[in-house]
């Protein structure tokens, strides 16, 4: 069983839950940016949690099925076509050999997920099938898909067509995104007024937004004046090079904040002022160039609460899918 890539879309990669080891050597986790959509896609086709899927950014691919199978599309809101006929997203469908999956233009969100029964069966690298394009590791030949690629699919599964997620549980990606942030790290480098203003600013996603990180525009940050410590470099935005958590927000030059996401650079010399909570990384990953984003400060306890809520929401989605199959 294989998927034939007829058109690759803008940036389509193989992703799963990502890596849990390697950060200490500079290797980011990678993995699906929108965890909820990723897990629901697998649940719809009956894959075990952790199976690899395709993540499609902004513009969907065109894919041919070499054999009959079951597939589902979740994530960003865009028309899904099977042989040119519109079909329902957030639902599993049967494809016959020779069928072609295609997409219309994006309405909201940024990343769609395609799960196929059996999962995308590329060789795992460091415990994961996720693609890390910056170093050409993992996924399909370490890169985004191209026309003509033949993607192996796990053979032992036929999947379950006809499953769907109730509309009430489908996330809405339209409107401004709100990203909850635990303030900390070197936030003391920013003046209190400026830090407060940061959280009241409507930031806009710039064209410089990808799996490594998103750059925003819309405000200025004012640094507390100081004599720079030894080894930090002369710019007030510089610190002695330090580890960057996934989701951390740095502000080179004080003008354009960068939030690091799943393919983050793991460290560097810019002051970081806080970190997007783990359950909101997927919200950032569904924004695109020009979208409005607000950052909202929360306590560590609120971040842990949000983590539980995200888990409960996914459990509810899985139950609802089982109940309707």
């Amino acid at each position, binding site marked *: 069983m294989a998927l034939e890539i007829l058109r690759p879309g803008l940036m389509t990669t193989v992703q799963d839950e990502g890596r849990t080891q390697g950060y200490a050597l500079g290797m980011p986790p990678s993995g699906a940016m929108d965890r909820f959509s990723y897990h629901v896609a697998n649940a719809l086709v009956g894959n075990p949690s952790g199976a690899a899927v395709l993540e499609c950014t902004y513009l969907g691919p065109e894919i041919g099925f070499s054999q009959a199978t079951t597939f589902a599309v979740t994530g960003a809101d865009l028309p899904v076509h099977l042989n040119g006929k519109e079909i329902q997203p957030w639902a599993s469908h049967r494809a016959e050999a020779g069928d072609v999956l295609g997409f219309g233009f994006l309405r909201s969100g940024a990343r769609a997920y395609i799960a196929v029964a059996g999962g995308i069966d590329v060789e795992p690298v460091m415990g994961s099938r996720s693609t890390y394009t910056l170093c050409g590791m993992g996924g399909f030949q370490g890169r985004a898909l191209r026309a003509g690629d033949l993607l192996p699919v796990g053979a032992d599964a036929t999947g379950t067509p006809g499953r769907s997620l109730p509309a009430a549980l489908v996330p809405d990606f339209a409107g401004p995104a709100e990203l909850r942030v635990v303030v900390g790290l070197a936030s003391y480098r920013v003046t209190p007024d400026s830090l407060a203003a940061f959280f009241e600013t409507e930031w806009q996603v710039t064209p410089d937004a990808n799996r490594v990180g998103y750059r925003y525009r819309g405000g200025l940050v004012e640094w507390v004046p100081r004599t720079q410590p030894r080894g930090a470099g002369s710019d007030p935005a510089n610190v002695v090079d330090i580890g960057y958590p996934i*989701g951390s927000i740095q502000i080179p030059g004080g003008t354009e904040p960068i939030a690091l996401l799943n393919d983050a650079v793991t460290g560097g010399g810019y002051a970081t002022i806080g970190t997007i909570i783990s359950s909101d990384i997927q919200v950032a990953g569904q924004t695109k160039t020009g979208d409005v984003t607000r950052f909202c400060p929360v306590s560590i306890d609120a971040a842990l609460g949000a983590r539980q809520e995200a888990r409960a929401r996914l459990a509810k989605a899985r139950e609802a899918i089982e109940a309707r199959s």
Partner: protein
Amino acid sequence: MTARLGVLTEPPRGTHYTFGGDEWIVVQLSEAMSLDVNLKAQVLTRALAEKALPGIVEICLSNASYMVRIDPDVVRPTVLVEQLRELEAAHSDFRSITLRTRIVDVPVLFEDEWTAATVQRFRDRHQRPDLTDLEFAAELNGYGSTDEFIDAMVSAPALVSMIGFVPTVPWGYQLVPEERQIEVPKYVRPRTFTPERAFAWGGAFSAIYPVDGAGGYQLFGMCPAPIVQPEQSLHDFRESFSFPRPGDLFNYRRIEREEFDEIRARVTEGSFRYRLAELDFTPAEWFARPDETVAAMQELLYGA
């Protein structure tokens, strides 16, 4: 707002324990870089790894800090911070310890054609477009010639004080007294290209670029041997795709084009191995007699 969230409004006095969202704890030991603070980070991260505390996913050494990736479903971040504070309190003398490590021969071809071409291509992003990176750095650090400056860079090994940015980049802090530390600024605006295996310097740190990519460090030369190998076919990569390990001592050695080409050929045919020696590094000895201690390390590596 900051008071309500328990956030620092003043620069930290002493160690700064801070949450990176719900999955990370960053421990900033000092705002300033020094050999002492990196030794503390090396000792604490090794001690933490030995403890194997539940809920710790990964431990990441940094120059003047360290970072822990955690599973907050196993351990509450606030509880773990207390455990990290206890760990710090249980250790005090970071010079009298002994670090089991390796000293490695890292050949470098200085003023090579590839980095020279890159340096010329991005002159408009540099502080001094009229000089090469090497001439600029030699002048800035008070050396009379680029040869003397190169001699200084290869005079003593660099302690690998952090690995990252992109996979396997070794940040090296040279084992010389503070007054002999080389320090250079980064490019005014980062380059969009740096060749694979370029040898560079930024701030107080030497570095090797593992793969082609953007970068802002001053470019001085080219290493013939790889530091990353995803296919893991070379001897030194059997255990990991990354050659550098935290705490390694990289002894940079100036080579000529002939040796560079020889090493490249051995890398291509798969027979290349780094020359290295295991050793116990006792910082107290180095602080007491830096030049003699370095000479003894180099003798261990190269023979008398």
